């Protein structure tokens, strides 16, 4: 498999420099753009495997960049944004972004997100040959509808199971409340974010050793949830 191609749309030269060092050192082929317009052109011409977009660009809104890319490409998009702008993150995710990293971030954090994104692209291309999801002690066998923590089999209600499999489907990626509501309860219930929270609590009590210090079902305050993937 050839080296994965990453397009980075970021106006700050210092951040570009640091990411160039990190990503090329990890074997990625990197193409950079300092403006949104250039970035969209780069995405069109380079056929990247992952796009990294900063939300604060000088020429156009990062959200618009995402929307424009989504018009013709399903390439994974990772957003760079600051803490405290949870609303922007949710908007970006709803606009089609796959994941986000809050500034300031460490190289390992970003690399992990890229890996998850690449894995999902790969998974989508040769359909579910893996029906069992495993992380730590947690095993979710979707073929036989079995959930185990260690050796113990866990009984889940239909909604809990649906919620868990939805998270498994997006494992490693952040999933917003809206997405979960839409996929588990259906499009009529997108206003009832507390449904998700309550069932998430049920799930934690069944799956986590210490529900107040979860290992698998992580909360991204103000944004959504992430199922640990690695």
């Amino acid at each position, binding site marked *: 498999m050839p080296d994965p191609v990453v397009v980075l749309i970021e106006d700050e030269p210092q951040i570009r420099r640091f990411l160039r060092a990190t990503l090329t050192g990890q074997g990625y082929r990197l193409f950079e753009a300092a403006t949104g317009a250039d970035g969209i052109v780069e995405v069109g011409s380079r056929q990247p495997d992952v796009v990294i977009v900063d939300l604060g660009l000088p020429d156009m809104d990062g959200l618009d960049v995402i929307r424009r890319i989504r018009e013709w490409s399903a390439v994974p998009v990772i957003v760079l944004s600051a803490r405290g702008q949870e609303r922007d993150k949710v908007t970006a995710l709803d606009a089609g972004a796959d994941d986000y990293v809050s500034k300031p971030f460490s190289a390992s954090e970003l690399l992990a997100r890229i890996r998850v994104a690449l894995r999902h692209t790969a998974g989508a291309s040769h359909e579910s040959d893996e029906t069992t999801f495993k992380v730590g002690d947690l095993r979710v066998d979707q073929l036989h509808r079995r959930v185990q923590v260690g050796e113990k089999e866990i009984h889940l209600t239909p909604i809990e199971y649906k919620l868990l499999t939805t998270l498994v489907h997006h494992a490693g990626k952040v999933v917003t409340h809206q997405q979960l509501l839409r996929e588990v309860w259906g499009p009529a219930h997108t206003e009832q974010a507390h449904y998700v929270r309550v069932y*998430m*609590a049920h799930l934690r009590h069944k799956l986590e050793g210490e529900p107040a210090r979860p290992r698998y079902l992580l*909360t991204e305050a103000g944004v959504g949830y992430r199922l640990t993937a690695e």
Partner: protein
Amino acid sequence: MTVDRPDPDALLARVKAEEARARRGKLKVFFGAAAGVGKTYAMLEAAREQRADGVDVLVGYAETHGRAETEALLEGLETLPARLVEYRGATLREFDLDGALARRPRLIVVDELAHTNAPGSRHAKRWQDVLELLDAGIDVYTTMNVQHVESLNDVVAKITGIVVRETVPDSLLEQADDVELVDVPPDDLLERFKDGKVYVPDQAQEAVKNFFRKGNLIALRELALRRTAERVDAQMRLYMREHAIDKAWPTAERLLVCISPGPDSARLVRAAKRMADRLGAPWVAAYVETPAQRRLPAEARDRVTQTLRLAEQLGAETYTLPGQKMSEAILAFAHDRNVTKIVVGKPRRPRWKRIVIGSIVDALVQGSGDIDVYVISAEREDGAPPAPARRRPSPTDWPSYGWATAVVALASGVAWLTLPFFELANLVMVYLLGIVVVATRYGQGPSLVASILSVAALDFFFVPPVFTFAVSDIRYVFVFVVMLVVGLVTSRLAARIREQAVGARQREERTAALYAMSRELASTRGVDPLLAIAVRHISEVFRSQIVVVMPGVDGSLTAWSGGQFPLDTNELGVARWVHEHHQLAGLGTATLPGASALYLPLQAPRGPVGVLGVRPADRHALDAPDQLHQLETFANQTALAIERAQLADEAQDAQVRIETERLRSSLLSSVSHDLRTPLATITGAASTILESGPRLDAQTRQELLESVREEADRLNRLVQNLLEMTRLESGALQLRREWHPLEEVIGAALSRLGKKLAGRKVHTSVPPDLPLVPIDDVLVEQVLVNLLDNAIKYTPAESPIRIMATSTDEAVTVEISDRGPGLPRGEEDRIFEKFYRAQPDRGRGSGLGLAICQGIVKAHGGRIWAQNLPEGGVAFLFTLPRVGTPPAVPADA
């Protein structure tokens, strides 16, 4: 030595007066003895001279009466178009005050100072227009005749037999910077009159012919000359005073004039004014309101009101004194005020009455001691014949008379029953008791009736021959007479006591009302509540509707929202005038009398704070000076209270500014220190790595890189805190409340702290049935992160941290406790202040973390506090109120 030097205070007052005079326009009056002496001509000539000197002159109003030589003088002078007023089908030409103020010349010529403006004008009199021009800093040339001087009005009327209705207050003439006497010998004037050179209105031909008699003209000329001479004399005295020439300071004379309801008291007031002027003394006019005078006909009371107003216009201080006996009240007041001379009118009571009841003058003279008493003849004013004094046709109080009759009937009944046991003479006592009861309860009229009825009843029922009014024994007639006299005297006394009580109660009520308002104002903060109190009290006491108009931030006047009647633009205009001129206007005054309400300036020591509008239920309720004074007292109290509130607000603002300033400098020093420290580490470490390159061993290199990263983290936290604090304080923070399980938020906080918690024992105890709470999860997570971060920072690495959540019906309480050193005693509250650090020398935090926690918890309606634990360590607790009902979640199988 000191005698040669003027008193510094007086000097200061003089300097101030001069300053005020410099800002005001200068007034020059062309003064004449009669019409036709050539005042307008002289005035226009003088104006032309000014014009020739390059002064910006405007003719505001000039009455040429079509005389060619006068009209010729107007040529070349700019003339202000007259304001045309429609009044009863006629078009009146009036001076255009607003036009003049808008044009703002240096000097304006306004003829006929005594003119009465057409109804609907801003001021009732032209002299008021002139005052406004002067206030605006415009010089004024004007004309007037001697008969228009208020204090000479009656003298002129006596000389000429013509009462002049248009008068100008003496104060205006006294204020004038210049008075030029335009004088023509009487013979020349008569000549002019015969030649038709003197303007005479058609309808007044006869009157004017009588007026233009040589005798009259000589007398008027003398008056005018004397008046001008007095002025010159006053100027001379002023000059001497200013230049310390007069070593003998004017004696402290003070004049008191007693006003009576009689028709001649206006004359008395004018006489007193002239006397006071000649003495150069201040003067006071007082009216004693005895119980008897409260029963006077409305007309007489109105006259008193008018006389007091006249005195006020002539420059007197006026007082209404309550009292039983006029002489006593006057003397007490005079002694109290250090009055040196009392002026009274000659008594008009018939001689026999004076002997029986006594005369006020006699009483005054007897009790005056070292005060001089001047008695001035009480001739009637010509042209103003007094209405025959008649009793006020007070509405007859029929029920009272009914009760009086009933009481007599009852007395007769009792007498009838006791007749077998008592003698006839004793029955008189029963009747007298009845009379006393009626007198104390129903006043004089009914008790009079009761006295007569009692005598009649006694005669009819008990005196033989019984059941006739005939009397067999002449001795009974004596009993009747004595009984009637005793009855009358008793009723008179009782009625007087009752009146006194009523009067005292009225005064007490007013004082009590004022006191009640003052007390309530004193215990209230904030302008709006103060105004509400003032409006309520004034409205009750004066039975009026009240509005308050206050200047807004931009200085424009707007009605306060709690007013009791709406203000249209006209009324608001009146209020604006009052605010700008610091004088009352509107209903019942001479300025803008067309307004529906009376407007008083709310004058506080620092300046005007607003305008009070009073619309009485009865249009004339506020005409009496004592009512007006009372209202002014209320207004002053209100103004003081408003100013006090405004000062308090300003003081608070200043305090806040100082506090903000202190915080800002504290922030600057703290932030610059906190930002520089990690930056220094980062720069140092990075440069070491760059410059030493391969010479560094791997371990040192690793350490340096780790410190770069740690310091960068620290910098990040600081910036985060600063941003958070700024958002909290700028009010930009918006809570996005949603229903959350608290456990999840705690979990999110714990995973955010991640590596920092490595190796720490964290006990979390959250009851599984803890209800959902309506919170902003991002912010509450921040609170938890900050509190946990502190616990990590200030306690040993291996000591445990405990997170506990409990719930009551009202709130969920979260407690985060550690087993560290605890807080310094007494600092449990201070730690939530901005930039406070428990251990300043260690300087590890920004001193903002807890302040942010407090801001967030408060925004949720909760409370945050810290307490040292008896077993060691500190617990931070915060509450999150449970507002509303948690939404239901459908269960699934």
